[in-house]
Structure formats: C-alpha cells, structure tokens
C-alpha cells in the first residue's frame, strides 16, 4: 500500500479499499467520503451519524462503511472523526463547480467569501477555491467544517485549503 510509505492515498487506492459513492449517488447531492482504510480500533463516526449511514459494528476494528442512500451530507461525521478522514463532496452545486467540506483545525479559520488555494492529499496546490461555508457549532467541539467551491473536475482531488 502506497499509503504507509508516503502518508497519503492515491484516489485509485482509496477506491479499491473503501466503498465510495457511485456516480448516481453523486448526482443526487452532497455525500460523505470516508478516507479511512486501516483496521484501527475506532468508531465515533458510526455514533456521529444520526441517519445510520455509517457502519462499523463489531469488532470495532472493522473499516467504516458508508450507506450512500442514507447519507444526507450533513457533515456531522466530518467534525467528529478524530482522524479527520471524512469529507463531504457535492458535485451538484452548479454545472461547472463542486464543493468539498472538510475539517480544518488551524488558525486563522477561513471566512466565507475568502479565496484560498485548494490542496490535494499531498498538500500540493490543485487550484484556487472560494470559501462558501464555515460551520463551527459547539457540538463540533472546535473542529470547524469548511466548504470550498472548486472546478468540478477537481472534486475527487481537493481535500483541504492552504494554511495562511
């Protein structure tokens, strides 16, 4: 696995290990992508989802799986996963753009309207992005979920924005 040698996942590698939403599910609106691929003893994502869309079950080292039809893309699991391994992707927001909602635990927290460089899993700059939403209620316990709008073709690549 490239992951344990490099620290990041290639999208193809991820697709082989995790159940990702298919094109049909993407066409219906925002949906969670779980980029957690090792059998570690962890399950708060399962408890975080009020819609029963994430399953870990017993034993706790099972990989989490997403039930795409149940997921409404609310983003609760994004804030609660201690691995910061979940994002919500919406490929339906416009014809040319998509949004990626990701956890962001650095100061300064991005603000709506701000332009920030959007980065991939290796921290490389992919494109410029516009911050369209920042959600940070008490229930997220200091893990703001930031939504960036980017050209649609980068929806599977962009996973965060630069720190400034």
């Amino acid at each position, binding site marked *: 696995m490239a*992951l344990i040698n490099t*620290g990041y996942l290639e999208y193809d590698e991820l697709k082989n290990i995790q159940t990702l939403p298919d094109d049909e599910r993407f066409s219906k609106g925002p949906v969670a992508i779980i980029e957690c691929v090792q*059998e570690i*003893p962890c399950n708060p994502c399962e408890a975080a989802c009020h819609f029963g869309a994430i399953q870990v079950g017993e034993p*706790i080292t099972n990989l989490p799986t997403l039930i795409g039809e149940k997921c409404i893309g609310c983003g609760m699991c994004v804030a609660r996963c*201690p691995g*910061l391994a979940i994002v919500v992707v919406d490929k339906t927001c416009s014809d040319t753009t998509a949004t990626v909602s990701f956890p962001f635990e650095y*100061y300064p927290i991005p603000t709506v309207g701000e332009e920030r460089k959007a980065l991939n*899993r290796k921290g490389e700059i992919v494109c410029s992005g516009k911050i369209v939403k920042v959600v940070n209620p008490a229930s997220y316990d*200091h893990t703001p979920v930031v939504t960036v709008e980017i050209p649609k073709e980068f929806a599977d690549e962009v996973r965060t924005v630069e720190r400034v």
Partner: protein
Amino acid sequence: MLQKDVLVIGAGPAGLAASIEAGKYGASTLLVDLNMQPGGQLFKQIHKFFGSSAHRSGTRGYDIGKQLLQEAQEANVEIWMQSTVIGIFPEHKVAIEKGLDSGKKEMITIQAKKIIIATGASENAIRFNGWTTPGVMGAGAAQTMINVNHVKPGQQIVMLGTGNVGLIVSYQLMQAGCDVVSLIEAAPKIGGYAVHAAKIRRAGVPIRLRHTIIEAKKGENGCVCGCVIAEVNEHFQPIPGTEETIACDTIALAAGLKPTMDLVKLAGCKLTFNGPFGGYIPLHNDRMETSCLGIFVAGDTTGVEEANTALEEGKIAGISVAEDLGLISPDTASNQRKEIWERLHSLRLGPFGERRMQEKEAVMKEYETCIGAPIPIQ
C-alpha cells in the same frame, strides 16, 4: 500512620479508572500523582481521541481527563496532586513526598491494604552527535510546552519518528503555529495510523522514511540551528555519502515510550522483558495482580498501549481490589472482569493490535507458569 484501603499511584486514565471502581464500591481510596493536574498523558492531549465511542472517543483528551476526575470525586476518592511516591516497603507501607498548598513538600508514610501502580510510561532518548544541544527534546516535552504552558519550543521543527506520538505532536505543533520542516523515520514505513499521517501530508510536510538524524548542529547562540540526516541501510546504519543538512531550531524525538517501572521494581514484583510493550514490565494475572500479594498494576506500566486499554485495565484492577476487600462478591467481580476482557480483546484486533493481544496473553501465561499465586512482599 494514615491508613487507607487502597492507594492508587498515578492519576492517568488507568489510575483514575482504578480509583473510581475502588471508591465506588466503598473502599477508602487515595490517588496520588506527581503532576500538577490529574489525567496523566490525557491533560496535554488536545486532539480528539481514537477508540470506541463507549470509551468517550471523539472527545478531546483533556476533556476525558476532566470527566474521569469528576467521576473520581463522585466516588469519594481522595486526590493528592504534586505528590510523589518515593518508596514501597513491606506491610504495604508507602513513603509519599506530599505537595502542600503552601508549595512546600512534606514526607508522609501511609499504609494501604491494596496498592495499584499505574505510573504510565516515559519517553526513550536517542543519542547522536550534539544530542544534548538546547533545542533537542522529547516530543512529549514539546507537546507539554505548546499545550500546557502555551510556549512554542521553536519555530522550525524536525520530528524524529512517525509513530502516533510523532505524527500527533507534529500536527499539534503546526496548530500552535510552528513550521514542521520534516518527519524523519528509520523504518521503511510509517509507524502510526495512516489517518494521522494523512493530516501531516495534507499540510505539505514531507515524511522521510529510511532516514535518521546523525547530528544536531549548534549555532552561534549555542542552540540547535540544524540537523544532519542520512539514509540508513537495512540494519538501520547510516549510509556514508547520503548526508543532508536541514535548517531547524528544534529537534523533537518521538522514538517510543518505555514503561515507568521504578516502583514496580522497588516493590519486588517479578518482571519480564517484552519488546513490543516497550521493555521490562511486571508479570500480572487476569486480575491485574502482580507476583506480590495485594500489589496491582494497570495501563502503560504493564506495556505501552492506549488510553482505552489503560482505562479498562484500571477498571479490572479496581474491581479486583474491591473483591479482595470483601466489598463485592467473587461472582460479581469475575463477571465484570469477563466483560472487560472481552472489550479489551476487541480493542486489540487489527494490524496494530493483534501483536499486543498475543503479548498480553503471553505475559499472563508466564505468570501462571512461573508464579501461579501471588506472595506477600518480603
């Protein structure tokens, strides 16, 4: 002499869980810790914890510490902070250097029917040229500086080690506003969880595998101004000619932890050497009792693991002392222990846990064959 049913040494997750159980069943319980705040490793962990949601995972470490502290207070546990246990003697007499409100220390000897040692683990040091230069420190020390004392150890950090501690502390250093220049790892693969490594990579920080630090460079101010790294061969020896200098002002070392064994040794508990668990550890049975009658252990002291496993082992120790003090029936105690062992079992599955499960079983097997039943301390 002050008399207690139970003395618990170390207020990390293991010690807190043990004292909550003992206190809950009515044992007069004293919990002592040398730190200023209870929680052990937890109080400097600002990240959300891994583990099962039943064990408060997804909650930040210091909040878990606060919740446990509250439960301990509700269970009438007496807590002495800034108090160091410095000796364990026959008849369970224990010497404590007690911290007073005035800031002074007072030597107190107490006697406890049962003793639970949960002193955790300490960081391993790594030696290279210049390793005593100011600016070279343990990753745990760097973490204490940023998260407890709110002081940056430096601006440009090189981290040695990619276990979970190296990965998590690197992330927290970036959160504190430091630049982590690079992570250096001698092994051919990243040691910790991939999700932690992914956070580091997303932030654009390189991870150099098959490399080690061979020298800390000293600047004109007498402090670290860089480090020399080199590629290593399969025997972890630096390959001449591959040296590279990286500018930095801090070198943090995350080269593993080893169980804190001083008190276990003083008490005369039988030990065994166990590499995966971090070094010498006390032999114990499935009640967490050592070879010494009435002396129990729990948590990282019995082998370096995680907060979840420390909590569960602490509970087992607490339940076992309550049983031995006649506060709960052997049946209740054994049923509760059985449930906890099942949970521990499921925590020790998967590629990161299996080895620990085998080792834990080996430790308890060795106890059965070499000790059988505990004997009073001589």
